[in-house]
Structure formats: structure tokens, C-alpha cells
């Protein structure tokens, strides 16, 4: 039987990493299935404190996903610097975990084997990989489902496995791209609570891309709003809500919270209106 204490000894007590984007631009060629090429991101400066939880929002096509892909090392910037933990990003690494909207689990592997796959691939001893995977799956409420297969799980449970699979690699940065966009609102709010608990416990740096503004308010400490394409940082909104939000069941129904959501919506509407007038002019 794996205990939490024994696993914690195996885990390094490190915080998440600092993230720095300096003058980052991204240009895409036109064509090949893309109607519009050109500048996607324009001179983006962004600094994430170690262990912070930051949400990225912005009008459709503003380059949120591109920004995340640059940090993941799946793409290189056309100009500027992308640094994580003081090091330039030069390709994908298990130190930077990603969660997508689709859980992308291996259908032929059990929940546990899906989760140990990453650590085993980088040479972690099987006993340690199993202990770590069991710990995080239990943390996410999946202890009864270790030996189940993905098709036997609901969408919300599959996304929990995707979270476990990212965190089991002990990343310094966790990147999430609309991770719960395919789930219904009720399930979504629950999985957000799980993710917040995970962040609070691990203190890794979280970067969370979403188009749902109320979700950005609920999960993050800070919201970075990008302008319409080409995306640049248009606004930064501080979210001064308690860190342990999952413990405040009625938080969403307080006037302070609702006002904050309204404020973010107003800023978003301004950005969308600017984008529309730019399009009409063009």
C-alpha cells in the first residue's frame, strides 16, 4: 500500500518555475489550410511568478493557443525570447506538462498504465512510477478506477486522468488549453476545483487558456487578456479571491465575485468591439 508520506519523500519540494516572454512575436505563412497567415502574436511581454496561476483569455484567433504552444516548445517564436526557469525553451519536455481539451488517453491502457507511461518512458523505476501515479490518481478521486480503461470513464473522469498524467512527471510548468471545454458546466466547475486543489498542493506554475471568462476568474490569481489578432497583452486583471476557492461553496454567488466577472466581461467586450471595427475597416 502506498502512503502519501512515502510518495512525498520521493517528490522534490520544488516550486514551479518562473516564466518569461520577452518581445515574443509569431508569424505564420499563409495557405496550407489556413485562410489567414501573417502576424499572430505581436511583441508579447509576459512574466509569471514561480507557483502562480495565470489565465489567458482573449477574442477568438488572438493567439492564446499559439502562446501556449510556444511555452510548450511545440513551436518556436519568430522573434523574442521564451524562458522557463531561466532557460530558453528549445523543444518539448516532460518538465512542461500540457492538458488539452481532449484527454487523449491511450485506449488500450488502464488508467494506472496511462499515468505511469510518462515516468517509465524517461527511466523512472517502475515501483516509483506506480507509487507516484497511484498517489495523484487518488488525489484526483480516481482510486477506484485505477484498473479501468478510458472508455469506461465519463468525460470528467478522463480529464482527471489527463491531469494526473501531466502532474506525475513533476513538471515545473503546467499548461492547459481549454482543458474542460468539452465538459458540461456542472462537471466543469467540479474539475476546476480539483485543479485548484492540485495547484494549491503542488505550487507549480499554471498557465490556463480558456474562452470562458467566468472560469478564468474562478481558477486564476491573474487574468491576462490578449487583444484581437495580432495578439498582444491588452489588460492584466488581478483576481483577489481566496486561494482555497473549493472550500467556499458559495463564492460564485457573492457580489464581489459576480462584479469581478462583469468587469472581465466588459473588458472582453471592448476588445471584441475593437477587433470587429478593425475587420470592418479592412
Amino acid at each position: 500500500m502506498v502512503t502519501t508520506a512515502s510518495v512525498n519523500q520521493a517528490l522534490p519540494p520544488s516550486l514551479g518555475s518562473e516564466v518569461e516572454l520577452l518581445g515574443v512575436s509569431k508569424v505564420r505563412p499563409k495557405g496550407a489550410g489556413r485562410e489567414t497567415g501573417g502576424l499572430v502574436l505581436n511583441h508579447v511581454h509576459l512574466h509569471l511568478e514561480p507557483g502562480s496561476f495565470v489565465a489567458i483569455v482573449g477574442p477568438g484567433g488572438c493567439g492564446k493557443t499559439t502562446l501556449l504552444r510556444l511555452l510548450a516548445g511545440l513551436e518556436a517564436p519568430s522573434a523574442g525570447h521564451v524562458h522557463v526557469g531561466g532557460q530558453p525553451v528549445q523543444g518539448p519536455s516532460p518538465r512542461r506538462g500540457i492538458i488539452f481539451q481532449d484527454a487523449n488517453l491511450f485506449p488500450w491502457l488502464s488508467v494506472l498504465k496511462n499515468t505511469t507511461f510518462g515516468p517509465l518512458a524517461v527511466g523512472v523505476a517502475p515501483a516509483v512510477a506506480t507509487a507516484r501515479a497511484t498517489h495523484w490518481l487518488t488525489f484526483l478521486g480516481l482510486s477506484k478506477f485505477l484498473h479501468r480503461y478510458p472508455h469506461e470513464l465519463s468525460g470528467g473522469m478522463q480529464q482527471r486522468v489527463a491531469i494526473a498524467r501531466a502532474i506525475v512527471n513533476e513538471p515545473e510548468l503546467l499548461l492547459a488549453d481549454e482543458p474542460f471545454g468539452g465538459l458540461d458546466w456542472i462537471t466543469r466547475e467540479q474539475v476546476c476545483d480539483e485543479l485548484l486543489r492540485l495547484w494549491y498542493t503542488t505550487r507549480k506554475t499554471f498557465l490556463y487558456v480558456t474562452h470562458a471568462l467566468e472560469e478564468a476568474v474562478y481558477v486564476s490569481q491573474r487574468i491576462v487578456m490578449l487583444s484581437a489578432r495580432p495578439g498582444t497583452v491588452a489588460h492584466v486583471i488581478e483576481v483577489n479571491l481566496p486561494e482555497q476557492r473549493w472550500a467556499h461553496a458559495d463564492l460564485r454567488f457573492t457580489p464581489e465575485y459576480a462584479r469581478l466577472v462583469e468587469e472581465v466581461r466588459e473588458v472582453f467586450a471592448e476588445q471584441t468591439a475593437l477587433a470587429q471595427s478593425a475587420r470592418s475597416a479592412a
Partner: protein
Amino acid sequence: MSTSTSGGLVVRNLHKTYPPDIVALRDVSLALAPGTFTAIIGPSGCGKTTLLKIAAGIETYQHGEVFFAGERIAGNTSWRRSVIYQDIRLFPWLTAQANVVFALESKGLPKAEARRQAAQWIERQGLQPYADAYPAELSGGMRQKIGVCRVLANMPELVLCDEPFSALDWTARESLQLELLRYWYEQRKTVLFVTHNVEEAVYLAQRVVLMSARPGVIKEIVDVPLPEERWSVRRDSPQLLAVAQYVNNHIADEVRKAQAAEQEVGY
């Protein structure tokens, strides 16, 4: 019996089982008075969408009765009862405006009048610059706006909404919420709105029907004591938040029950 239901939707002792023995709805009774706006909310699998499909006439049932404006509904569709889906499919070979014109012409409007009305709907959604664009050239939000215009332009008497705005960004969602409210307010038609989003349900509807986890049973009907002119209500107003909190607590209980059942299956 049916004459008393003119303009409204009446559901009596409705029972729906999917093969082999999945009970989707158990003894559901519900009456929507003509011209009212009702939301249904409940955990996944509670039968909300089934109820909506039955009212649209695209799903049948085993027991019970369903009437709209005195007409018995049992697998029969009508333009008077239209569904707004989460992802409305436009005809890809028609322009945005031609998609709306097509719907109006199908209802028998002369071409010139159909064009005039379609142009009005498109203008109100601020999509004039895209009237001649094809669906593939539009964003998801724009496509949904055109789809909603296409449904409402036909003046359905019962508007059945199945999570119509869930996939949209905030500006498109707000714009379509207001369009639907305006249609309901000005035309005095009956609206049934299925959603998972507590805030949306409370902001839009006069009454919120709370359903239990499967099998779907109506647990409670909550009145929303806000003015009909909802666009004048602030989304952070204490009255709105109080109702939302009440509804949310109920839903959270039902979701926990549904998950306990899920955990049982997982032993």
C-alpha cells in the same frame, strides 16, 4: 382537456425508456403557460434533452401525453415548434443571408419579403458585412448567430433550446441571450431552455425546473422574482445571485448522487 392548453405546452405523466431498460424520464408532468420562459436544469443524463426532443416531436415515448396549443405531440414535427441546438448546421452551399431566406421561403413568404426580413435579422446581429459570406468563412459564433436568426425568423410558437449558447465566447453568448429574450418579450411566444449553466438559467427564465439525476424526475420548480425586462437586470444583482445560489445547491446535491451511482459501478 386539450382546449385549455391553447398556446402552452402540457406534459402529463410522461414516461420514456430507452432500450434495454434505461429509464430517461419517470412520470414527468409539466405545464408551460403560453408566452412563458422556462429553463430546465439538471445533471448529465437526467433526461432534459429527451424531454425537449419529445416536445419537438423528434422522439417518441411509452406513456403519458404531450400537447402543444391543443395539438397532441407524438413523434410529429411542425415549424411551430423549433429547436435551437448547440451547433446549428447551416447549408454550406448557401451564403449567411441565403440560409435565413431559405427558411422564410420554405414557410411560403414571397422572395422579396423573405430577403427583406432576412436582412433585418442579420443587421440586428451586426452581421451585415458577412451577409454574403459562406458558413466556412464565418467564426463559430457568427454561424450560431445566423442559425438562431434562421430559427427565430420563422416565428416559432414554441422555441426549444438545447444548450444553444454553451460553446460561444462571451460577446456572442450575451448577444444571443438578448436576442432570444427580445423575441420572447416582443412576440410572447413560449420558450423552453435546457442548460447546465445556472447563471444563464436564472438570468433568462421566469421559472427554473430542477431535475434529479437519472431517472429524470422533476424535483422542484423555482420562480425567478425578477422583472420580465431582464436586459435591465444586472448580472451581479443580489436577487439574481440568491436564486442562482439556491439552484446551484440543489444541482450540486443531484450531481453528488449521480456520481455516487457512478462510483458504485466502478466498485
